[in-house]
């Protein structure tokens, strides 16, 4: 390294990142972009274009995007968006008190153990854990057996294959991505500020709303991005726990690449989803700049 000019060193350090992103992100995205302007052939492959000029000037290359603006597809987009928002909110509501306890209230000697307990389940494959939820929620599953044994219900409840079971699966799966950043921001919180607030007469609630929460907002924001983005594209949970009764964007895109054999339309839908996520990230970056601090 010694003989390299100092200026080239950051470049060398960045090279692996750029290569990985270029090869596994930019290149596939480019392929998807090109595919999204193509047409499905009757056999389900890509139609060859004979007259490029006519193809472009007639606007036919945009037909997949036009098709995606159909109310039917927008409705699925909207529902997926709504489910992702709900997942994020529920994750925040559940993770914040837990993280608060872990970072501030828990006895120091338990902290490591508790944190490990929160994370260890996530060493198992997400799929296996989702199947476990199926076993718990099914008609003759653990939850119903316990409720019947406790004489709380007589007939088993329909716990599986509905919106609630999908929500349980989504929140369960994404929870640690909210818990960890919130925990980190609470851990970093300067305790003397809390003392100062109390000294200056703030009650417990007032101190929380006016000091703790604003100071840990960056953690919440980071958690929001980490939870919202993957839950927007989720499709396994709705397939397994929802009995694939309701389609989400993820299912819709998957179907285009499989049963419908319509790669161009699937590509257009996938790009729209990517664009939506990118807008969110730009908004997040703008927020980060305004706060003037490193958020992640």
């Amino acid at each position, binding site marked *: 390294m010694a003989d390299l000019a100092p200026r080239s060193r950051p470049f060398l350090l960045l090279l692996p*990142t750029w290569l*990985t*992103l270029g090869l*596994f*992100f930019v290149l596939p995205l480019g392929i998807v972009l090109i595919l999204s302007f193509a047409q*499905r052939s*009757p*056999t*389900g*492959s890509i139609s060859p274009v004979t007259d490029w000029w006519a193809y472009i000037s007639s606007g036919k290359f945009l037909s997949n995007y036009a098709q995606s603006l159909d109310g*039917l*597809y927008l*409705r*699925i987009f909207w529902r997926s968006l709504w489910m992702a928002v709900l997942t994020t909110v529920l994750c925040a509501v559940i993770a914040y008190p837990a993280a608060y306890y872990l970072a501030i209230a828990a006895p120091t000697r338990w902290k490591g153990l508790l944190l490990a307990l929160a994370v260890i389940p996530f060493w198992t*494959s*997400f*799929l296996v854990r989702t*199947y476990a939820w199926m076993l718990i929620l099914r*008609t*003759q599953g653990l939850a119903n057996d316990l409720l019947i044994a406790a004489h709380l219900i007589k007939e088993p409840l*329909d716990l*599986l*294959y509905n919106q609630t079971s999908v929500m349980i699966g989504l929140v369960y799966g994404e929870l640690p*991505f909210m818990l960890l950043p919130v925990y980190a921001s609470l851990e970093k919180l300067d305790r003397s500020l809390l003392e100062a607030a109390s000294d200056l007469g703030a009650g417990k609630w007032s101190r929380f709303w006016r000091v703790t929460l604003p100071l840990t907002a960056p953690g919440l924001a980071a958690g929001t*991005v*980490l939870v919202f*983005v*993957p839950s927007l*594209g*989720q*499709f*396994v949970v709705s*397939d*397994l726990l929802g*009995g*694939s*009764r*309701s*389609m989400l964007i*993820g*299912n*819709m895109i998957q*179907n*285009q*690449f*499989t*049963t*419908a*054999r*319509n790669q161009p339309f699937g590509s257009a839908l996938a790009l729209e989803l990517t664009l939506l*996520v990118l807008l969110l*990230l*730009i908004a*997040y*970056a*703008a927020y*980060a700049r305004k706060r003037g601090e*490193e*958020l*992640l």
Partner: protein
Amino acid sequence: MKRPLARLFTLASLCFAAMLLAGCDNSTSPTARPGAGSSATPSATQPSADQPITAGQPGSTQPASGANGSAKKLSGVLNLYIWSEYIPPAVLEEFTKRTGVKVNVDNYDSNETLLQKLQSGVVDYDLCVPTDYMIKILIEQKLLRPLDAARLPNLKNVDPRFLKRGFDPEQRFCVPYLWGTTGVGYNKQSLPGGVEGWGAMFDPANKGKILMLDDMRECFAAALKSMGKSLNSTNADDIKAAAELLKKQKALVKTYNSSDYDNILASGDVSLAQGYNGQIAKLAAKEPAKFAYVIPKEGTTWSMDAMCIPVKAQNPDAAVAFLNFILEPEIAAQIVNGVNYASTNAAAKAFIKKEILENPAIYPPADLLKKCEAMEDLGEATSLMDRYWTEIKAE
């Protein structure tokens, strides 16, 4: 200017990593089933399929199968891409014993997944087992390697009615394997009246007890057949009417599932399940007092799976040897005895268990079979059907 951009990229790469992680899970999801792992390795013991190998005794090293004479040249591994629980591990072990070629098994749960994999060009399976309509697509997309009939002497064992069908008129690309039907598996205790036709799957009395395959074509086939139409209809009015029926049916359906239907039926979560006969026949054989399989009286899908060699196969010689091997009557019978699907091999009949040959769920009577149809590619109508399918699932 530079820092927020850099931060955005850090964040983007992080999110990308998160998506990648989630994606890894996702990509395995459609094929993954709790039990599938056991069938993925030939060495894994599978209780139901572990019959002793009749053809495996030292004395019967099949001098008749001429192509196996080239066994001395065989080496390496054979990568087999097949439906889950579709070949008994003992059969694969026998092949390894005879030829020294190790068989790697990988599973898929839909023809479309198979198509995607072969189209991607990054995999090098030596054999795959597509269903009739998909063979046509694979041939059209030039993804299959032509076979040399001279090297497949055992093809003579195949029942002629499974040969030279529309999708492969010269029998140049595929070797018939097993065939089966899509029908209804039901719980006899919750439905003491029994089930005769598709009507039960659309009957409001069975609300919340129904499982349908999570498969656009099979759902439409059920609806079209129940209306007395062809399941290959490309008529827009037929497809629309079937879609209306399926939309109404959705309120009755508890879950759509293509890979786990037998387990869900067995667990008691549903009482009626649309499914492929082999898996349900296996369940019914285990608990005959509780479960039964019926081919709906209106007719249904019948499908034949055939073994094909992809163009990118790395070990085509071993693949050809394997094709001759599974075409041997004893081996073909052993496969049927293990997986409960009907054989396309006429010569195998003598070695198939009597209770399987006499089971109408596996070998349906001829008059019922006449009402069944093989699926054909719908061409442009696929997009129309997909739109309705999305509408059904969008509710």
